[in-house]
């Protein structure tokens, strides 16, 4: 009963607000980690300009891109400087949040 209520609320919020399901679940830490990315990549990863859109990319793609940026395997302007702030586990959590 309790679980069903929570799932219903999470589902309603994610359906209508276009929020990844994690955002409405009990994962405040994942939100903390991923929310700042929207400052460049847009709310829920939907960019409005020249910044690459993250929304719709797979978690696997996002995780690999972030690790490659961090390790200098993928050229970037600012992303290497950003990606260096995250551990493998944090990158995987970010990828899961945005990539679903």
């Amino acid at each position: 009963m309790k679980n069903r209520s929570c799932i219903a609320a999470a589902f309603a919020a994610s359906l209508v607000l276009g929020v990844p399901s994690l955002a409405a679940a009990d994962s405040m830490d994942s939100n903390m980690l991923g929310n700042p990315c929207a400052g460049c990549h847009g709310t829920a990863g939907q960019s409005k300009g020249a910044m690459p859109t993250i929304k719709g990319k797979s978690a696997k793609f996002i995780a690999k891109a972030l690790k490659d940026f961090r390790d200098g395997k993928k050229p970037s302007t600012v992303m290497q400087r950003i990606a260096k702030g995250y551990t493998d586990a944090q990158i995987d959590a970010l990828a899961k949040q945005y990539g679903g």
Partner: protein
Amino acid sequence: MAKLTRRAFTTLAGTAGAASALGLVNIIPARAASGRVVVIGGGFGGATAAKYLRRMDPGIQVTLIEPKKQFVTCPFSNTVLGGINDIGFITHNYDALKSTWGATVVHDMATAVDTGKKTVTTGGGRTFGYDKLVLSPGIDFRWDAVPGYGPDVAGKIPHAWHGGEQTVALRKQLEAMPDGGVFVIAPPTNPFRCPPGPYERVSMVAHYFKTTKPKSKIIILDPKPKFSKMPLFLEGWKALYGGMIEWVGAGDGGATKRVDAANMTLHTEIDEYKGDVVNFIPTQKAGKIAQLAGATDKTGWCPINPRTFESKMVKDVYVIGDASIASPLPKSGFAANSEAKVCAAAIAAELAGKAPGEPSMINTCYSLVSPDYGISVAMVYGFADGKITKKKGSGGVSPKGANAEFRKKEAQYAEGWYSSISSDIWG
């Protein structure tokens, strides 16, 4: 049993809130499901906090109090001064915050906060009760810091450190200035809003002069011995604008000691500088309502608990953005946006009876040296030993000596950043 009831109620209210986001239900439940949050200030911090609170928990009733119906940003206002964008490009409204996110937006000036009764009163005579109050008032000026400058002079010598009328006033002066004229700009002492801002302003004005009034000069009278992204700005200025720009730093007596508005002259300890157009940016402090709420300390800024951004001075009051003391985060629009999300998550958690999560924030500040020449500074921030910390190994500035393609990409990303963050805040 009580727990079950509350959860069931949250579910219902959450669904109602979600429905209102679609425009199916226009009335927000009169009694808050999980709390009432009042946000004062609809800029980078406040509007983000309002949106993300609603996004995180549609059961929270959010009221944003902001006098202006249209908000003109300070970020990217330098492109208006440089003639690249018009004022409409940096003007935003609160339609999405109301219709998409279901926040209540009140266009009025918050004039008093009663932290005992937990109410906010406006100039229009309305009173709003809160469970949690978020202050995002931005900056105010210390008008008395340098003799001769005050609100009465700001029309003739604009500060243009609030986006809007001041931006337009300074742009008009630059347009009216003849070729061969002198633009004098005096950045403020630390700490101040947008540390690279004055130097991007110099760049944008230099771009405008180069293309329309190439005999003109720019003099920077700086009370500081160095400034944000200094080596990158100097490299860019030399490459693009030759000898047009002269920087007089603290070591050369750059600090303005007196403003003579009648003669359009700034006096330093050792010299005087007359400009055809003068831009004096005053010393700053937290926006007035923060002081009225008792959230400022003797520095004029607001000490906060870095885990939640709750004020260290007053309970259930949170301060985000430029007004807060959130060092090592800079006073930037990006930082305000990032802080607002941490604050919103902390408030949502506390209202739901949970412990706030661990803060994680980013700042990226782009500056345009020309429309095709962008530079940036970035940092990832974590939390350790009760403090906001810089994540080791992360961040830093764009490389010196980078090629034109790199600079052009960062210029494109600068505009991309502005579009995305504007949408993340007001969209």
